[in-house]
Every structure is written in structure tokens, then in C-alpha cells.
């Protein structure tokens, strides 16, 4: 970021913009946790996928935030449905297979990205400033990513409260009843997984201009989303939004005041504290019985 006239206000504004996209990604993770009922460690990989799609489009001269978001959503949905249908659903009842397997997919993707695009940092041009309000530069990417993220989050909120969202809520509540009233639970699960992965990729594509694009870039938003999900719940979209924006501000501030790598350390510390202090954390959201089967 070039030196702005009003650095603190600039950081707060950018934190708000990035936080909105993080909220979108966290909502996807919460959806997977609620409907598929797994802790999905591959969520960050889809964020990375979105960012690389944006990079490739930019390099080919067809770079536009909306094109990148749409294309990455399509690709990630296809990957997500494949992963959900062929791996996540069949091994769902084994916590070991799910945690290590989803991490395995993330690492598979990281290494593949490293082989295709190299381990070094890539970047996308931020674009010219749109306007400047009292020393704070507002760029099109920020406004766009904020609007798209808030729009999608609002859509999700609407969906969950509409009759269309009933199957999702019912499966989250009690999958056996959902199955007994004739819902194709498995199909809804992998479609949800695909949609949530697509949403993570959209967040990655939208945030690509402000990010350092490296294969492991998805880890930070994954940890951030985990915090949001542990601290919030599945249905309360607005609390997801508020916590994610708060964390976005916090990580931007700490990156500015200390050094960039401290913001990741800070997020890791928050996650650890939440887990230790709230051991029931995720269990409060996910019906307990799925995790009682230890193997």
C-alpha cells in the first residue's frame, strides 16, 4: 500500500473492505459445519484458488474483479462438488479421515499451485484510485469486494430464512428427520460443500489485489474463518459479519503497527485461546453425536 495521507483511517477502511470478504468465506465454513457437519480444513485452498484465477485473468489481460469472481466460483464449485461427493461424504463419520484428509487436500492444492506458478509472491495491480476522501484513498476493488460480499451474505441470510433454506436448516438440526421426510441428504450435502467452496473462492478472487499471492496464502483466512465460526454460529449471518470485520481490522492494524507476520501469529493465538477457553466451542453448534465416534 502506498503511503496514504491518513494511514490509520486508510487501514480501518481497508480492514472493513477485506473483513467483508472474510465474512463471506467464514459464512461458507459455517455452512459446511452446519450442514455437512465436518471441520473443513480445505476451505483456505479454495480462497487461494480464487486468487490465482484472478491472477491468471489479469495476466491474460482480461482482469476484472467480477469476471474473476464468477469464473473462480464456477471452478471452485466443480472442485467442491467433486471433493464433497467423492471424499467428504463417504468418510464423514471418521473425524481422523475428515480432518487429516481435508488438510491433505489443502496441502495437495498448495503444492500443485507451487509447481504451476512457483513459490514466489505474485501480485495484481491495485488499479487507480477512485476518489480520495480527506486523505483516504478509495479504490474500485475495495468498494466492489465490499458490495459483492455484503450482497452474497445478504442473499445467504435471505435464503436461510426462506422456504428454500428449510432443507439446510433441517439437516443441520436433525439429519435423520430430514432423510425420513424424503430429502436427498447426501446430495444436499455435496451441493452445499460445493457452494461454500465457491464462496471461499469468490472471497479469494475479490481480495487478490490486496493480497500477496503465494501458494500458502489460504492459511490466514482459514484460521480467521475458524475463529469466526467458533465464536459465532451458523444461522446468525450478521454476527459472522461483525466478527469477521472485527478480525479483519485487527489483523490489518497489527500488520501495520507491528509487522505483517504478527497478524497471522495474533490470529493463531486467538484461535488457541478460544479453543482452550471454550472447549465446547464448535460442539455447541454441531450436534454432539457426530464427534462422539472417535474413530
Amino acid at each position: 500500500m502506498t503511503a496514504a495521507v491518513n494511514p490509520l483511517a486508510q487501514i480501518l477502511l481497508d480492514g472493513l473492505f477485506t473483513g467483508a470478504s472474510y465474512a463471506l468465506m467464514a459464512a461458507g465454513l459455517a455452512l459446511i459445519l452446519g450442514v455437512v457437519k465436518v471441520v473443513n480444513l480445505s476451505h483456505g485452498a479454495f480462497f487461494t484458488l480464487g486468487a490465482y484465477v484472478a491472477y491468471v485473468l489479469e495476466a491474460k489481460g482480461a482482469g476484472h474483479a467480477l469476471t474473476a469472481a464468477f469464473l473462480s466460483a464456477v471452478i471452485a464449485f466443480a472442485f467442491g462438488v467433486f471433493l464433497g461427493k467423492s471424499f467428504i461424504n463417504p468418510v464423514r463419520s471418521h473425524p481422523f479421515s475428515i480432518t487429516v484428509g481435508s488438510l491433505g487436500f489443502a496441502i495437495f492444492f498448495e503444492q500443485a499451485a507451487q509447481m504451476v506458478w512457483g513459490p514466489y509472491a505474485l501480485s495484481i495491480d491495485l488499479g487507480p484510485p477512485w476518489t480520495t476522501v480527506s486523505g483516504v484513498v478509495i479504490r474500485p476493488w475495495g468498494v466492489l469486494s465490499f458490495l459483492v460480499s455484503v450482497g452474497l451474505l445478504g442473499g445467504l441470510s435471505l435464503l436461510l430464512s426462506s422456504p428454500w433454506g428449510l432443507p439446510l436448516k433441517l439437516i443441520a438440526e436433525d439429519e435423520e428427520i430430514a432423510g425420513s421426510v424424503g430429502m436427498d441428504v447426501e446430495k444436499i450435502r455435496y451441493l452445499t460443500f460445493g457452494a461454500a467452496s465457491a464462496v471461499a473462492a469468490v472471497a479469494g478472487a475479490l481480495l487478490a489485489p490486496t493480497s500477496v499471492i503465494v501458494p500458502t496464502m489460504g492459511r490466514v483466512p482459514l484460521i480467521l474463518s475458524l475463529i469466526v465460526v467458533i465464536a459465532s454460529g451458523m444461522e446468525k449471518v450478521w454476527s459472522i459479519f461483525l466478527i469477521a470485520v472485527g478480525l479483519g481490522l485487527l489483523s490489518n492494524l497489527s500488520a501495520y503497527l507491528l509487522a505483517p507476520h504478527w497478524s497471522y501469529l495474533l490470529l493463531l493465538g486467538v484461535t488457541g485461546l478460544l479453543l482452550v477457553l471454550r472447549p465446547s466451542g464448535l460442539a455447541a453448534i454441531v450436534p454432539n453425536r457426530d464427534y462422539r465416534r472417535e474413530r
Partner: protein
Amino acid sequence: MKPTGTPRSGRTTGALAAAAGVLLILPLAGIDAFLLDVLTVGFFLAVYSGSWDIVGGIAGQISLGHALFFGTATYACALLTSLAGWPFPLAALAALVLAVGVGAVVGYLSAPLKGPFVALLTLVMGEAAHEFFLGQTFLSPEGAYSWGGEGGIPVVLSGAVSPWTSYYAALAFLVLATWAMVRVARSQEGLIWTALAGSELSARASGVNVSRHKRRAFLVSSAIAGAAGVGFAAYVGRATTDDFSLELSFQAATFAAVGGRGTVLGPVIAALILHLLLQGAGIPPAGRVLLYALVLLVTLRFFPRGVAGTFRERARSRRMVRAPEENG
């Protein structure tokens, strides 16, 4: 420690002895220096994978930050020998104590947690250590490379060790550590860990202090992982941030999943074979980890009990079919 498991079939012991014999005479058969190096590193990696199985397989506490113990040991060796100027044996001892200390902390914090939450906490702790050491410069002398960051810190040994000595020392370490781990797994303590992994609720109902035994599993596991780290640091002569990486933690879980969780020997052998195959074929690190991830996903999907686990299951069911015939 009283062995409580069923006696091993003589065939497994024979096969293991034969494998050890082959490894013993391999250097004499004139393999090249590259392969010797691959094998030596493989021995340390195998012990490290076995140590994961103590806590992750036998005790059922999925650890995704196992590199934390390994890296603590390598960094302690490096910092104490090169910055503080300690002699290596003293530094090695301190490194072991430190690794066990970290194991005690991780065990204490994760004992109240269950299933995926243990995985999340250990992952977060491992990543934090990696990120911390990545951003840390310990010494930046003028006109020379600085110590710390991605390049790591050198480990100072008092004298040069020949590759042959290293190979045999590492092999002896592998055999000893594996023997110890198998003994622990078959002891009373190991039995309690297995019960814990099976069902924490039933273990608690039978009067087992669940938290205490989980902490013990972390202690034993971190001690062995730390020992592997000390050996690795002494052999490679450098501690780098790779020793703390998520990739290394992930490798331990992968080898265990492929070899068969809770079998100790399975993860040890899987680590040796996979490392030998991929490293020996000269595949670069990124490609190697990619293939590990692929092997892991296929194993989890189609052989949830791993190779050794699947074999053991099959042998057991065969024995159960045969037993009534012999009795009747």
C-alpha cells in the same frame, strides 16, 4: 512394563529381522552416497512418524502440530551449540528436556478437548511456532549470512562424523526407538491409551483418569519425536523453519494413516518406504508432498485402516474363522 498384547506371530518378527539385516549390510554392498543419505534421513523420519502414532494412533489424539516437538529439538540443538556455545551432548540433553516440556504444555492444553478440536489446537500451535521462527533473526554478523528466518541456524558438532557412522548410528536409533515404542504400546499404559482412543466415555466409566493418560501420551510421544529431532539436527547440521512446518506435521499423520494407525510398526515402515521411494527417485520437495497428499487421500478413502491395519484385520478375521475348527 508387562506385555499384555497377544504374542506376535513369528513371521512378522522374522520379516522385521530380515529387513534389519538387509539395512545392516546395505552399505557394505556398495550403495552410493546419495542413497546412504536418503536412508539415514529416512530412519529419523520413521522414528518421528512412529512417535506420532503413539499419540495420534494408539491414544487417538489427532495431532496436526507434531513438528512442534521435532522443531523444538532441532532449534534447541542449533541455538545452544552455535549461539550459546554449549557442547553438543549437553545441548542434545537440553533439547530433549525442552521437547518434553513442550509436549507437557500441549498435552495439558489439549487434554480437555476432543476429536477435531485437538487437531485444531495442535495445528494452531505448530503454525504459530513456524511463523514465529520464520520471522526471527537470531544473529546478523557483518559480511556473513544472518542466522534465523528461512535459512535457519547451523548446528555445531565437535568433530566430523563419517556418513557410515551416521548411517549405523541412525539405524541403531531406529531399531531401539521402534522397540521401545512397541513395548510402550503393548504395556498397561498402551492398553489404556487404546481404550481411550476407542471410546473416551467408556474409558472414563471404567475409572480411567482420561486427562492424565492423554497428557502421558503427549509426554512419551514428544520425547521420542524430540529424540528424532536431535538425531536429525546432528546429522543434517542445520535447523530450519521446515522443521516446524505444517508439511512435516502433515507427513507424520500421512505415514501413520498409510501404514495403519495404532500399529506403530505400520507408520515406521510406511515412512521408510515412502521416503525411500520418492526421495530416492529424486522428486523435488513440492512434488513429494503433493504425492504424499494424494496417497493419503486414496488411503483414507479406500483403506481407512491403512495397509498394516487392513492386513491385521484380515489376519484376525482368518484366525477367528479358524479358531472354532481347531477347538471343535
